[in-house]
């Protein structure tokens, strides 16, 4: 669906079903240079299984208009405005990579809006080599190649795809080269408030990490998981681009966690479970 946020048209994927506010909402946030299609194979399940799904393209990304946010703090504010625009008071927030940083800022700004918080392939800070930012400014395609080569794990590099016949590297390349990758990377590089923001999170949280993540090494992901006392899922033999390269495993982890939160809130279960390794 299309939505006006701060005067600019925003594209919001809804998982193939019309968004219904009355259902529990899951908000999916994409990472640097990417768009809503990162979540193509998770959003549909939630939309068809009793949830309202929102997967926006951040401003200036793919199908959304407006200027890209120039800081994580700004993107957190934009998310707050976005939820106001769509009329949602509370949502399960799921952020991949940079999307999780924005989610932390949203959580700081509007803690009541966060029903649960899930980070996928991410950490409290995502330092970026200045050379990569410089490359992204001058040659987005080259920078996208660098990120895709580092971002996808071994199986995807070998051309193996969770969706028969498809090549995720080419798909990611087409999306990233046309999006404001340099701006996104600079936002990540500049952001240092993640640990502080995480201290304010009171909602249940989960971290879905990959042991082969070279962009946000698992050590950093484990640290924020510990700080958040998050339910932890570690996926073996995958890289940073988890929602795309391990869509089913990410979906299984997400739905177990989010369904668990829903059941916990209804009093159907007493705990939210512990960590698991897939």
């Amino acid at each position, binding site marked *: 669906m299309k939505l006006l946020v701060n005067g600019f048209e925003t*594209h919001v994927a809804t998982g193939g079903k019309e968004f219904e506010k009355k259902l529990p909402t899951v908000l999916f946030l994409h990472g640097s240079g990417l768009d809503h299609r990162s979540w193509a194979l998770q959003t549909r399940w939630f939309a068809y299984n009793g949830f309202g799904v929102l997967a926006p393209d951040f401003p200036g990304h793919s199908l959304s208009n407006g200027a890209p946010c120039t800081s994580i703090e700004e993107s957190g504010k934009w998310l707050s405005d976005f939820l106001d625009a769509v009329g949602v008071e509370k949502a399960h927030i799921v952020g991949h990579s940079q999307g999780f940083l924005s989610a932390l800022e949203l959580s700081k700004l509007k803690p009541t809006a966060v029903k649960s918080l899930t980070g996928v392939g991410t950490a409290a800070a995502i330092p970026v080599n200045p050379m990569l930012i410089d490359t992204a400014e001058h040659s987005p395609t080259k920078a996208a190649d660098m990120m895709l080569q580092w971002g996808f794990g071994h199986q995807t590099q070998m*051309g*193996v795809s969770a969706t028969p*016949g498809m090549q995720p*590297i*080419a*798909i990611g390349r087409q999306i990233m080269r046309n999006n404001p990758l340099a701006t996104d990377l600079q936002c990540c590089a500049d952001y240092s408030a993640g640990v502080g923001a995480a201290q304010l999170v009171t909602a249940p949280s989960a971290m879905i990490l990959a042991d082969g993540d070279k962009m946000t090494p698992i050590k950093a992901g484990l640290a924020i998981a510990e700080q958040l006392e998050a339910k932890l899922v570690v996926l073996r033999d995958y890289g940073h681009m988890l929602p795309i390269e391990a869509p089913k495993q990410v979906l299984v982890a997400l739905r177990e966690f989010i369904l668990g939160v829903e059941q916990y809130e209804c009093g159907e279960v007493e705990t939210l479970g512990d960590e698991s390794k897939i």
Partner: protein
Amino acid sequence: MGRSSYYHPDTIALHSGYVPESDHGARAVPIYQTTSYVFDSVDDASSLFNVEQGGHIYSRISNPTVAVLEQRLAALEGGSGAICTASGMSALFTTFITLCSAGDHIVSSGQIYGSTATLLRHTLKRLGIETTFVSINDQVALEGAIRANTKMVFCESIGNPGLEVANLPQISSIADQHGLPVVVDATFAPPGLCKTIESGANVIVHSATKWIGGHGAAVGGVVIDGGNFDWAASGRFPELTEPYEPFHGIKFWEEFGPNALAMKIRAESMRDIGACMSPNTAFLLLQGIETLNMRMKQHIANTKAMVEWLQSQEQVTWVNHPDLPSNPSNVIARELFPDGAGSMLCFGVIGGRAGGGAFIDSLKLASNLANVGDSRTLVLHPGSTTHSRLTHDAMAAAGISEDLIRVSVGIEGINDIQADFANGLRSAQRAAESQS
């Protein structure tokens, strides 16, 4: 620019799409000879049917062995995805029928394979899809043929059998101005010879039966989505941008972006038309792909030697290959095919049709048959076979003369091919002398 892998093409040809499976560690790609796949649960089945997760449901739609071939071919061409089909012709039909509906229009090169010309001229016309044939490198003719209801520009990267190389950058530039995708049948230009997507193609079709297999043992085709066409910006493709009712109103472009076309073909054409590739065929073609780059080097070397040798034979009246300056598309051929523009050549012999017949009938090593791209040398007289259904004018437009002999140069020892052809040329000479 298309890129699906950071490995060298030689490595992609051997590995892409498969890592040894965990149960047994099979090094070769297993043949998943099964029609269907057990679902984990009713919910799992439901989510597969609703494209909520990737996976296999039924082998008409997808199959693990076929998927390896698809992913390997997509990686070799730099595409975002690929769909394998029962044949090259079914790959073409699938592409046309996915992008066009009754009332739509295609602009096509006139220099194309006879069966493709028949498909466009007769079968699709019966379904309400019109085609205008143009000289594809004629910018004015190409632009003039585009209408409001045009859905694509279609050409072969190297025309069959006229061997005209399509000026893909120029064609792409014109098509782009009109929001049209360029669909290229690259059968004569197997992966590695030409950077087809980088040169301007948006969709590539191959008859995998040919050089990709190389062994002449399996018939198959593939459609490769270049992932580089903005179906929404074009404004001509509601099939991809508007809700698709049979899948709960899915919008392929919004949901899948760069692989929207491949996903639509999988969801619609494979379901409805069912021209799927068998896992056995995929396995055979995978065996061929493993040596594709090595074979192409030998194909090209032998072709260069044959072109030179034929030009020196007194019974040969003319020789055509894109690498020759006499070929009208030689300049663009050198640009797009730096290592050589394929292993197809054509020539004429003295004695016209009778001379040509005598030449072909006397060959012992080369085979007279309706195929190309085999590792063995193949010859054919198109005027009496593949293009026999065309009118005289259509044959002329396709660049075919009565004396034309089409050669698919194989990878045998070059001296043996030349000795065989020398014997054939002597027969042609005797036929010509008996005519006079």
